[in-house]
């Protein structure tokens, strides 16, 4: 028995509905938190921060956001890129309009603005379902990108339409701008990730989360047993967009520092975040992290393997990388359609039975 659940009794309902009802899970969770907060900031360097950890953390927030909408509420959205752009441009406008206010406030406000925009674009979901809705959300994607590209006010009329993040400080430490230390970048993202993950977990285990899941699994039945589809769907859009907005804001301000909307928040971004959710596992917070890690690391790993270790020409590696990413996505889906999170769950079930096969 490598993994045990038995002998772990709950005496109250509150204890049973806590985040990690199983003790060993809880310990693992604390260990991860301890390493993330207590160890990594001291060892992190520029490469790990900029190429791996910061994008991983930011994409995790976006993936959690989309997972709420798609994984929990069943509304497939391809507008993530556009909503991230809303977050990015909001935070940019706020940063330049109110330079004296803390960036943390700006990021949260950017999330709020995105939530409003997301809710507005969520309205058609009351009529439109499934892939029709997915395609319809592309309207948001393309429209928002067009808007930020077109209206000079959003990018403060800069010549090229790019926005770049001015330097901002939290507790006297630069977190945006060129002079940000990698650990500062990492920590501010980590802080947001931690809070977002906890909030997401809280929402999904309570009645709000159940409403979403009911809508996802069978919207008609959900409505008949008393779920108001309007509020359920729109709240999912709002919460999801809130997270996505935060991730967009961090993506721009902390990670890239300068963005051009069509390039950074194009349709590819929408797809990427959706992949993360699906590969990681729809309807799972852990899956959002797993998916983000997988898709941030995979290309880097393949490149390191191909170019640095095997010494192949980078163009061949780039093409092979596409082939490999594509093949791996298909392979994973065939192995476990419900994502890495489910793979983990099945592994746990197996461990529980171990050493017996079933």
């Amino acid at each position, binding site marked *: 028995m490598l993994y045990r659940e038995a002998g772990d009794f709950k005496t109250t309902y509150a204890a049973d509905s806590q985040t990690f009802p199983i003790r060993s899970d809880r310990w693992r969770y604390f260990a991860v938190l301890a390493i993330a907060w207590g160890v990594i900031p001291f060892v992190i360097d520029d490469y790990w921060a900029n190429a791996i950890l910061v994008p991983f953390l930011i994409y995790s927030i976006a993936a959690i956001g989309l997972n709420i909408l798609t994984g929990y509420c069943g509304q497939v959205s391809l507008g993530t890129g556009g909503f991230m752009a809303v977050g990015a441009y909001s935070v940019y406008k706020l940063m*330049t309009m109110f330079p004296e206010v803390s960036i943390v406030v700006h990021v949260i406000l950017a999330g709020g603005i995105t939530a409003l925009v997301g809710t507005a674009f969520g309205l058609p979901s009351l009529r439109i379902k499934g892939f029709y809705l997915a395609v319809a959300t592309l309207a948001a994607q393309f429209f928002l990108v*067009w808007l930020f590209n077109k209206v000079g006010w959003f990018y403060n009329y800069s*010549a090229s339409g790019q926005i770049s993040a001015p*330097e901002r400080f939290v507790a006297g430490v630069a977190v945006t701008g060129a002079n940000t230390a990698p650990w500062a970048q990492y920590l501010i993202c980590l802080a947001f990730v931690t809070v977002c993950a906890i909030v997401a977990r809280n929402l999904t285990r309570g009645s709000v989360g159940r409403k979403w899941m009911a809508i996802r699994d069978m919207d008609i039945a959900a409505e008949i047993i008393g779920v108001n589809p309007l509020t359920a769907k729109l709240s999912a859009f709002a919460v999801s967009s809130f997270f996505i907005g935060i991730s967009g804001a961090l993506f721009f301000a902390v*990670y890239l520092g300068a963005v*051009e909307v069509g390039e950074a928040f194009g349709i590819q971004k929408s797809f990427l975040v959706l992949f993360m959710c699906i590969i990681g596992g729809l309807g799972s917070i852990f899956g959002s992290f797993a998916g983000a890690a997988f898709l941030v690391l995979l290309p880097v790993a393949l490149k390191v393997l191909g*170019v640095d270790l095997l010494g192949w*020409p980078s*163009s061949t*590696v780039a093409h092979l990388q596409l082939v490999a990413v594509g093949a791996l996505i298909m392979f994973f889906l065939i192995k476990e359609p419900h994502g890495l999170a489910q793979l983990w769950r099945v592994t746990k079930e197996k461990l529980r039975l171990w050493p017996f096969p079933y």
Partner: protein
Amino acid sequence: ELVIPDLSYRTGPYGANGTPFSDGYQDYFALLNARDGGIGGETIRINECETAYNTEKGVECYEATKGDAPLVYQPLSTGITYQLIPKVAADQIPMHTLGYGRTSAAAGETFPWVFNYPATYWDAASVAVNYLLSENGDDLSGKTIALIYHNSAYGKEPIRTLEELSEKHGFTLTQLPVDPPGQEQKSQWLQIRRDRPDYVIMWGWGVQNQVAIQEAANVGYPMDQFIGNWWAGAEPDVMAAGMAADGYKSLNMNRIQNYPVLDEIRAQVIDAGNGAGDGSNVGTVLYIRGMYTAMLAAEAIAKAQELAGSPQITAAQMRDGMEALEITNARMAELGMEGIGPEFTVSCENHSGSGEGLVQQWNAAEQVWVPLTDFIAPDKSVIDPLIAEDAAAYAAENGITPGCL
């Protein structure tokens, strides 16, 4: 050993353009290694990293390569350039963005680590207008010029300058944005067909160029009134349209012809099996531009070695070399590429060189680009104030006190 990263893109929507450029860039250094044993006795190592024209991958590449004591970055993407501008300043590594990137980086006092010689986007816009002026007896008043552009940061760059110029010379400017990638341009070209502007200037990249040239031919727009900038004037852009593209013009910062150095590359690099590509690109517009960029880097390295007094140099010394760079006709001839680009010098105040470009024309029957003019100077009186204004804004936003290093 000197390390030069090459953030190239051989995949993705712009892979067809990125490949020849990167081949030229790398092959030239390979030639130096093979022929001269490197520069000043130090061999050059290329550190290639694929960006797929994607900013995030560009950042990843930058972070992955910057630990290797690189001398100069050259990302061939306006988007990536914007990411790297603050980063290279913080890391103190120079970046060269030849004819792309942020125009106001010409203001070396604000952007000490970024160089965009020999010319900028705004120079290009001005060169195009100056060319048209010369075609029209120095008078464009009452004429209409349509700008068809890539609807992105890159495509929007010339608008400011062209607007200024339209005011100054009295022509009407109409703007026709095309969303990337740009496969569908029917409405834009129907509009052009109806309005019949006197000239069409194109700021395109990738498939947009091919489609535009094809559509121009379809609607019967006269090719010799259609001028692309220097990123819209390479072989792939015109090949798809076949004979219909005959007469299409574009700017270039290079004169396209068969230079002796190309033969050397063929003999010593390609045939020796050290080519970055299969050699089929040698001599094409983007290949030559890549090679030219490499040459400018090599010259700057040589300059830096001279200034530092040692063959092994640091990135900071490289920057000094770039800032002291001087390209003369004699030197280009010496290098086996006589007249490949304009003569120019770089200084702390001016990182963008002379800003000159020429106009070339596509001969579809022979499948060659034919240089039509000599290097044309831009109208610095219009551009310089714009650069000063933009650089000042950047300096203010980012708390930079301009000054020479």
